[in-house]
């Protein structure tokens, strides 16, 4: 019997968090992860590397969505932390730390640096925050490029990974990426399920109202900000491991934001599953059209605009609207005593929990 | 013959209200908080879209006409809470409304004549005015549109009694000038004193309508609180 903490309400309604569908998806997800673990044994290094790229994109999309979709913070400067993670790894390995450990530490350092940054940046809202973060990214980029030991502006490679034979390097990188992705996704998932999730959505929907209800707005945002920074930092470090060579202009470049924006808009802003879908779509587009030069970006931008205007909830959001599909139980579902699903779903996308306790057909 | 005829379908706050106001009439809209009066006024002014029904102004269907165009046609609203432009001076608040003025009696000077207290404050920013002065400015601003129909939403709210008296004095001038007035008013006695007809709303529906002088106080209170009639409205959700 599927049952976890359903509260009994008057009138025979009860609140359920796990629907049959979401349990099914949960199991499927675990199976998928298990499968992914053995991928390096089944396929060649090339495939592994491609999958690593995909997973890095997933991390980035989920992080950006956490900020924008749940926190209402549109950052045009997450590349600041991506760059920090990548260059942090270089720095740490130059000082003798083994590469894979350095990557994790670099990611965490990015999160730590995000803390004081947030003290300034979170004073801003909306577009001011967006550009402010962009400036922060530029500053970090300039500061790094001024350090010649980090390659100046011309780029530097990650050397410490030479110790691993090529096939193994890809595999290790992949597993680390998989682990990080799973962890970060799990973290975001947990954040949303707990109080902080609901308060964040309240903030996103109406900041002043939320504040008047006692939601500690700034603290909720700060948590998100730091987590997103650490996530992007790790993604940057993993990107370095995957490609082995980085340059300040590109790793601190704003095209990262363009990618994240695209993935999240197309996938579904504010949904849990959306960014994952968006990352997959983007990955496919990237592999197919990535070499088409400027028109490719024009297309990306155009599609992003179209989605923002006409399909603001992204593909997943549209599916969700129609079918009330929620694969992973981030919200609440209201059930009448007798009725089987589907019932009215309160959800993580910002729709208020149902107040009308009507019978559903 | 100027008349508005408003019929609404299931608006959240207003349900199936049907209202006909004749030219030159002064109609008081009364009802408890949340009865839907403000929504109704805003819908007539065009700031709110009804989910069903239509609004006919002087023979023309204006249901789809955007707000600013309705002003040109002669409908002006004095919004709840006055909603003056805080950074603009009194004079600017007035003249900005007169920008698309449909030619007519009211000019900045004449409005200031009507509300002498504003004369010395005319260059002051609206945010620095007292409640009564703000209300006067808000009404004056609506007058600058030279409306044939003026809608007033809770003009006595938050004002000292003397200010309220002043406001209603100026209303008499309006009424005698032939302008059609629909006003929402919490203060029952004031409302009944200035209106020719009264409509009472409860929970978004019309529960009473009639000539002000013919209605008894008991009837009005009963309708206001919903103790009128067989349906026990009571204290449900």
């Amino acid at each position, binding site marked *: 019997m599927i049952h976890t903490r359903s509260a009994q309400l008057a009138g025979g309604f009860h609140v359920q968090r796990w629907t049959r569908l979401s349990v099914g998806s949960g199991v499927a997800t675990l199976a998928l992860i298990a499968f992914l673990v053995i991928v390096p044994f089944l396929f060649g290094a090339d495939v592994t590397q491609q999958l690593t790229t995909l997973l890095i994109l997933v991390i980035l999309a989920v992080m950006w969505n956490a900020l*924008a979709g749940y926190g*209402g913070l*549109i950052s*045009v400067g997450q590349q600041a932390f991506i760059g920090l993670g990548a260059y942090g790894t270089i720095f740490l390995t130059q000082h003798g730390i083994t590469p894979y450990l350095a990557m994790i530490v670099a990611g965490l350092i990015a999160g730590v640096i995000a803390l004081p940054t947030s003290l*300034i940046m979170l*004073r*801003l*809202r*909306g*577009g*001011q925050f*967006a*550009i*402010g973060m962009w*400036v*922060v990214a*530029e*500053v970090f980029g*300039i*500061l790094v490029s*001024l350090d010649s030991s980090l390659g100046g502006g011309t780029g530097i490679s990650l050397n410490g990974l030479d110790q691993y034979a090529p096939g193994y390097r890809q595999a290790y990188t992949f597993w680390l990426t998989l682990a990080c992705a799973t962890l970060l996704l799990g973290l975001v998932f947990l954040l949303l399920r707990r109080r902080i999730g609901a308060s964040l959505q309240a903030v996103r929907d109406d900041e002043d109202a939320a504040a008047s209800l006692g939601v500690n707005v700034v603290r909720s945002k700060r948590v998100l900000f730091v987590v997103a920074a650490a996530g992007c930092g790790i993604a940057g470090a993993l990107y370095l491991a995957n490609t082995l060579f980085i340059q300040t202009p590109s790793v601190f470049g*704003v095209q990262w*934001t*363009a990618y994240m924006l695209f993935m999240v808009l197309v996938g579904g802003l504010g949904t849990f599953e959306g960014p994952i879908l968006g990352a997959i779509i983007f990955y496919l587009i990237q592999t197919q059209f990535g070499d088409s030069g*400027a*028109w*490719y*970006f*024009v297309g*990306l*931008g*155009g599609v*992003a*605009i179209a989605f*923002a*205007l006409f399909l*603001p909830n992204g593909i997943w959001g549209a599916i969700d609207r129609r079918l009330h599909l929620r694969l992973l139980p981030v919200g609440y579902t209201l059930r009448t005593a007798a009725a089987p699903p589907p019932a009215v779903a309160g959800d993580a996308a910002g729709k208020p929990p149902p107040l009308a306790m009507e019978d559903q057909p | 013959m100027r008349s508005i005829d408003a019929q609404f379908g299931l608006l959240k706050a207003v349900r199936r209200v049907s209202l006909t106001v004749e030219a030159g009439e002064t109609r008081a809209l009364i009802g408890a908080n949340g009865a839907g009066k403000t929504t109704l006024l805003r819908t007539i*002014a*065009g*700031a709110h879209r009804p989910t069903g029904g239509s609004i006919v102004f002087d023979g023309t269907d204006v249901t789809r006409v*955007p*707000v*600013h165009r309705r*002003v040109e046609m002669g409908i*002006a*609203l004095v*919004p709840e809470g006055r*909603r*003056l*432009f805080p*950074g*603009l001076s009194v004079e600017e*608040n007035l*003249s*900005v*409304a007169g*920008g698309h003025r449909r030619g007519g009696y009211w000019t900045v000077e004449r409005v200031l004549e009507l509300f002498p207290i504003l004369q010395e404050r005319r260059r002051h920013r609206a945010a620095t005015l007292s409640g009564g002065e703000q209300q006067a400015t808000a009404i004056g*601003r609506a007058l*600058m*549109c030279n409306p044939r129909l003026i809608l007033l939403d809770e003009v006595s709210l938050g004002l000292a009694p003397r200010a309220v008296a002043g406001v209603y004095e100026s209303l008499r001038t309006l009424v005698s000038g032939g302008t059609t007035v629909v006003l929402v008013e919490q203060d029952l006695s004031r409302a009944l004193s200035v209106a020719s007809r009264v409509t009472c709303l409860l929970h978004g529906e019309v529960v009473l309508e009639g000539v002000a002088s013919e209605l008894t106080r008991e009837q009005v209170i009963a309708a206001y609180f919903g103790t009128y009639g067989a349906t026990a409205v009571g204290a449900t959700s």
Partner: protein
Amino acid sequence: MTWINVLLQGVLLGGFYALLACGLSLMFGVMRIINLAHGDIAVVGAYLVWVIVNQTSISPFLAALIVLPVMWIAGYAMYVLLLERSRRAGQLVPLLTTFGLAIVIENVLLQVFSPDVHSLGSTAGGLATASATFGGVSISALGSLTFGTAVIVLAALQLFLSRTNAGREMRATAQDPDAAQLVGINARAVYARATAIAVAIAALGGIFLAIRSTFDPSTGPTQLIFAFEAVVIGGFGSPWGTLLGGVVLGVAQVVGEQINPQYAILFGHLVFLAVLASPRGGILARRAGEA
């Protein structure tokens, strides 16, 4: 270079930044929209003038007379086609669409014009390099012209907002769009007008950019950042605040450059962040653009 010269150069540079910032500030003040494509629009202005000058060999200032009205109309189009829907869709949507627009503009320029760097300096008839010297202090002609233009534009904007009916309507709509409609103001027309003005001024800034230095398809974002920094430093309130912000930014950059050429832009960023971090910075975000 003496410090007076440095300061002066910074001030004149500030005029340029103020000009760039003007449109950005206007759009934010009236519509609460931060146009992330602002810098790229300036670059479009530069390219249009460049094309005309290349084809006809007339002075860039004359070419500007053709380009500015074109950009004005483009501004109207941008509002009607893109921004109106974005505005209605939510607070954050304009950020997403203007960012998308920025990407589109940059890459279309890249495709059409190639990544080559260009400049209009040589076509400005010696203006770009001319300077006058008064007792050891050297003032560049172009810098002065730019600064002067900025002051005129800002003053004109201030007059427009405070003295004309259209300007009053714009202020009213900025403060309370709902109430503005209720007194007969066509908010949509006001917003479109504001966008048109902002775009045209941005294009003017781009033209000056092209004359004073180089430009290429990717120059846009940097200009956006400078414009934004100028507005934040000076405060989102009045046009004169924008001028002040521009000047502070310009001086910071020039001072940084004296210390080390690589530090120029960085110093500007640091001053910006310092202003944000200061107690004043907390007020900035709350300030409504009350022009």
